[in-house]
């Protein structure tokens, strides 16, 4: 099924007999969906409205991300939450769409400063499991009219409805970027350094640590962005602040800083590496201990330590290794057998699981959307 407008989409959903697997660009094959017909949303494409002076854009859910980024770039703007590209990590092909970004709440390193995809999402239109078209939110930056289903739809992986249109906030691009690098830190010291950087007034827009950097050695990275004179001032202050952790180096080459943060954003260290990939969301100061418990083949810390990517031998039950902790672990890359066995998403405590199941039953009473994906 490949609808080319919202009314069409609603009709198709109304007619679904069994179940559908919703696909935007098919690049974010996170999770396992039971055998279902394909519902391809790439036909719902195009930017509906773009107002640079209001920092807002409305686009159909299947619009390629590249098209959106190009339109924004022409006005000197961007998607500030820096959505990661999953293709390298998951060995998927295809064209990422804005609907996929929203459905999986995909953010990148700048999440630590400006928020996640869900924080930028202003409105959604979607079709529920009974073929009803529903809207929530709008296209303005402040809106508390009724319940915030916009947040609920972001990160719902298509299990509550098939999105037809999304509206979101955008931000101006920055004039310049600089990165402070510290080499050779232990994980624990690195997270402490990142915490100190993030607790400073110098507006850190990226805070990552790779125990094995591009050249194989530990590297801690702190990104600062903004107007040129402000960036150079803050870089110098940051170097002073972190001097106690070891020698600091500043990287200002735009190509190298862009490539470096793309390396972090897309978890390039794990591309073409054998094994399962997990992502753990945790309180930063707990991260080194958890990473140690994981006994992983590879680790990457982003979000000041709040996001830990780990590479593990196929089929390893990371959650069993971690035990109880405050946060959650998502299985991002694995074969279907492992996904089925371990579950993609962290099991929720009983009362929360009951609420989530209750909500799903309201939005999609017959369970037609992405069965098995989220429980």
């Amino acid at each position, binding site marked *: 099924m490949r609808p080319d407008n919202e009314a069409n989409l609603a009709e198709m959903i109304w007619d679904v007999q069994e179940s559908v697997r919703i696909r935007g660009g098919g690049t974010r094959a996170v999770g396992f969906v039971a055998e279902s017909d394909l519902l391809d949303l790439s036909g719902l494409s195009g930017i509906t409205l773009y107002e640079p002076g209001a920092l807002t854009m409305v686009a159909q859910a299947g619009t390629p991300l590249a098209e959106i980024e190009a339109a924004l770039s022409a006005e000197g703007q961007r998607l500030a939450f820096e959505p990661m590209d999953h293709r390298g990590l998951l060995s998927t092909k295809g064209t990422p769409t804005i609907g996929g970004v929203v459905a999986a709440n995909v953010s990148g390193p700048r999440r630590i400063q400006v928020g996640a995809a869900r*924080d930028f999402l202003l409105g959604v239109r979607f079709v529920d499991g009974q073929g009803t078209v529903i809207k929530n939110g709008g296209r303005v930056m402040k809106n508390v009219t009724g319940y915030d289903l916009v947040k609920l739809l972001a990160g719902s992986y298509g299990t509550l409805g098939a999105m037809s249109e999304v509206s979101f906030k955008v931000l101006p691009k920055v004039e310049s970027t600089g990165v402070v690098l510290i080499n050779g830190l232990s994980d624990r010291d690195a997270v402490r350094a990142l915490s100190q950087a993030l607790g400073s007034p110098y507006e850190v827009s990226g805070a990552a640590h790779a125990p094995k950097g591009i050249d194989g050695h530990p590297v801690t990275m702190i990104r600062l962005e903004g107007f040129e004179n*402000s960036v150079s001032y803050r870089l110098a202050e940051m170097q002073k602040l972190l001097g106690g952790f070891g020698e600091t180096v500043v990287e200002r080459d735009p190509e190298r800083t862009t490539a470096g943060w793309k390396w972090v954003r897309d978890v390039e260290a794990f591309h073409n590496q054998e094994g399962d990939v997990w992502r753990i969301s945790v309180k930063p100061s707990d991260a080194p201990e958890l990473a140690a418990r994981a006994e992983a083949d590879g680790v990457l810390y982003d979000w000041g330590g709040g996001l830990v990517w780990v590479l593990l031998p196929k089929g390893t039950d990371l959650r069993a290794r971690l035990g109880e902790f405050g946060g959650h672990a998502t299985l991002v890359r694995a074969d279907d057998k492992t996904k089925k066995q371990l579950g993609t998403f962290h099991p929720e405590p009983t009362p929360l699981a009951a609420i989530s199941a209750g909500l799903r039953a309201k939005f999609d009473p017959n369970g037609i959307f992405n069965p098995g994906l989220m429980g």
Partner: protein
Amino acid sequence: MEMPTPDPAILAKKEIIVARLREVLPHDAVIDAPEETRAYECDALTAYKCPPLCVVLPASTEEVSAVLKVCQAEGVPVVPRGSGTSLAGGALPTADCVILGVARLNEVLDTDYENRTIRVQSGRTNLSVSGAVEEEGFFYAPDPSSQLACAIAGNIAMNSGGAHCLKYGVTTNNLLGVTLVLMDGTVVEIGGAHLDAGGLDLLGLICGSEGQLGVVTEATLRILRKPEGARPVLMGFDSNEVAGACVSDIIKAGVLPVAIEFMDRPCIRACEAFAGAGYPDVEALLIVEVEGSGAEIEHQLGLIMEIARRHNPVELRESKSAEESAKIWLGRKSAFGAMGQINDYMCLDGTIPVTSLPFVLRRIGELSKEYGLDVANVFHAGDGNMHPLILFDANKPGDLELCEEFGADILRLCVEAGGCLTGEHGVGVEKRDLMYDQFTAEDIEVQLRVKDVFDPEWLLNPAKVFPLKSTASRRAA
């Protein structure tokens, strides 16, 4: 404004309900004497008043849970209450309801500078959260003008904003976790000190749900390091259109001010008379504030003033010192007080796309003439969140009703312009009956179903947010 008829069966068994509540709470935590419950008869939407059946003031999550269990068993509606500063009537009681106030839940439970979070009980006031971390140089960003009084509980329920949310976001963008007690007494933990949800984003759903899905007793909030400094520039223009265009240009230029505040002539005059801040007598006034080190501020203000100059400002006044900054903010900060001195007023809260500012302001001016009621405009221009203040005379029969009709027209205008009914104050009872102007019946129905999941018997703050017609069958069941 219509409220549901109180349930006579509940009124009749008041004594039983009060007695059962006293079994689970300390004696002084249950208030039922009419002279005392009157203190809870309204929130900051004072046009509507109704004393509740009784008031409970639990001091722990367990006590909240116990109260809700009793109320669920007795089938009594519960209206959660923080500090009662809602401008939408969100905390307005009905005669057959129990007001559940969280004022005694006011502790700081944990401050964690390394992870930049604070855990508080929900009755704590907004400003005192910042106060608790101020010495270490941190602050809690959302800063509603009512921050001295309003509670985190109310902020979460209304997803409140503030003058600085252009840069830092509103409550939902700064909330990491809550302890929520469901109507049946179940205590659930949502989120925590980590980012983003592992499953459905229930935290995002709770924030802004106006006390209809559960009672929030604790919250984990993101705290930020204070900027090195901040300074505003004041600009005056001889038309709203030009001021609006200037706002758009500043936003497009890549400077991200922390605040862009807008006032029109009636508001400027009132503030000037009240506070004597030395504002110029112009058609439209903007206050734009930026943050950073001295040099960073200098640079950004330079860019902003350059943009402003292209729009031929009548006045352009850059603050050079803390005193000058305070003076620039003085008038704006006293806007509500100033209006209150001259007149009774109703404060609206619609949002519009920034680009339609000039059109909407012109239309409000026309409507003002048609209704014969004056309007003063003061608002967060950077994000299009308008606060038209309609002046009326509460002692003049019919004036309140006229004012409400006018207000409804302005909010419809916001929706027509591509915006919404409320940007930060919430729907409450005030905008409840306008919901169909923004939403279809289907859009509303799906929201009602969300409440069905959390509160199947519709006992939590049931007469709010949605048109009474749309919820009647659920409330009766």
